[in-house]
């Protein structure tokens, strides 16, 4: 469900949770549109998260008790801000560490270091 300009969707499938958790741990609270924009800006348009992938993930995270929400009225409509719970903060660190470890393993496995010289 990703739209990504650079990478195949298989490659980053499964990293969406990590991305969202990391963003939320760096920023106190965020809403959906903000998350997609931030990812776009940070990656220089290389990764774009689609709404179709983002909102199901956010709902699942909320259901897991990893994030809480706060509803703010913006004129006629409401905006849901997502925030990490204490459990979510631990979870975010774990996920990022796990992914970092994964990258190191992949570097070794695919012999990327040598090629990068």
């Amino acid at each position, binding site marked *: *469900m990703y739209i990504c300009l650079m990478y195949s969707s298989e490659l980053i499938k499964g990293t969406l949770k990590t991305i969202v958790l990391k963003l939320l741990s760096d920023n106190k609270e965020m*809403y*959906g*549109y903000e998350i*997609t924009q931030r990812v776009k800006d940070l990656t220089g348009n290389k990764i774009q998260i*689609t*709404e*179709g*992938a983002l*909102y*199901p*993930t*956010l*709902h*699942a995270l909320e*259901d*897991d008790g990893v994030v809480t929400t706060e*509803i703010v009225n*913006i*004129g*006629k*409509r*409401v*905006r*849901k801000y997502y925030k990490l719970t204490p459990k979510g903060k631990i979870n975010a660190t774990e996920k990022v560490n796990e992914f970092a470890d994964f990258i190191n393993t992949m570097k070794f496995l695919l012999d990327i270091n040598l090629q990068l010289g």
Partner: protein
Amino acid sequence: MYALSDQQIDFILNDIKIRGVEMEDLQLNLLDHVCCIIECELEPEGDFEDFYHKTILRFFKKELKEIEEETNLLLTFKNYYAMKKTMIRSGIFSAAVIILGSLFKIMHWPGASVMLVLGIGTMSLLFLPLMIILKTKDNSNKRDKFILAISAVLGVFLCWATLFAVMHWPGKGMFWIISICISIFILIPAYFFTGIRNPETKFNTIVTTIILIGASGLLFTMVNIRPAVKQDQIKMYSYIQSEDLLKKIQNKSGGDQKENGTQNSLAEKINTLSEQLKSLILESAIGYKSIPKDFESIGIYMEEGNLGSHFFENGAGIRLLYDLKAEIIKYNASAAISLENKIPIDHSILDIEPDNIGRYSNFSVLNSLTQIQMYVAAADNKLTAIR
């Protein structure tokens, strides 16, 4: 930056609802998201509707509902591994308990019914539904999903048909018919016509279809699909008529001849024991202690079979049978009973060795017991007539 009016916000929310998003949380999230995009990306004098319709297309591949379906999927399969574990454990448990229950059943050991209900219940209500959910999720092929789901549904009905048959609960015929119909009219055609088109699966499809048709045919032949089998029906009506006859003879002798105390109390004991034995047999056969008057309208049909679990459980029936024999010997020995009124023991149910009792059918034992009661009632009649 474009400024959205209240009507436009209502319009967007309404459109999100029309497109099939039902979760309120998700509706509000999407509404805010769309509004943000429009406010940030649309020129102040831009065409709202045109831009909205282009924007909403970015949210999905086929329809907006996908987002909600994906959300539900994520929420449901959060427990994916727990479900898988439960499925495997319940499968092993139910298979083991069903096999044990069957063994207990044929050995007439106590507890067979509980095990069978538990085992078949777990299999049909936990294992098979979980299998449908998990396996259809794993499988991306629509055909496989459908075949798997319909097979599992068939499995559930077969489970219930077997359970109802074993427990002698009313309604097993209906489950058999549903099972056979699903198999013949849905599963086999669906399997055959979807598989035959693919050259790779063509041969396997033909072979499996033949096996499936053969198995369904055997099943159809093995279980009596029609609710009443003629032979059994005649036996059942014959037993009911014997009972009626017994009632008539008993009513005739039902006067107030209390003076012949010992003989009367012996007769009463024989009657009570016979009735207890009959109710044990009937309870296993039809689920009632006696055949209800409206048995036809509530669809009770008794089938010929062994004496049933109630009779054998803890040896209850056999104990009663021994008691009955003892009482009849006392009755025959009683001075008030003339030679012609003695109850014959040889070649009757009373003459059976306990080891062989399992070979006798419920109908023959029921009739034999009723005959014993008739002897008693007839002897009673004669005594009354003499006096």
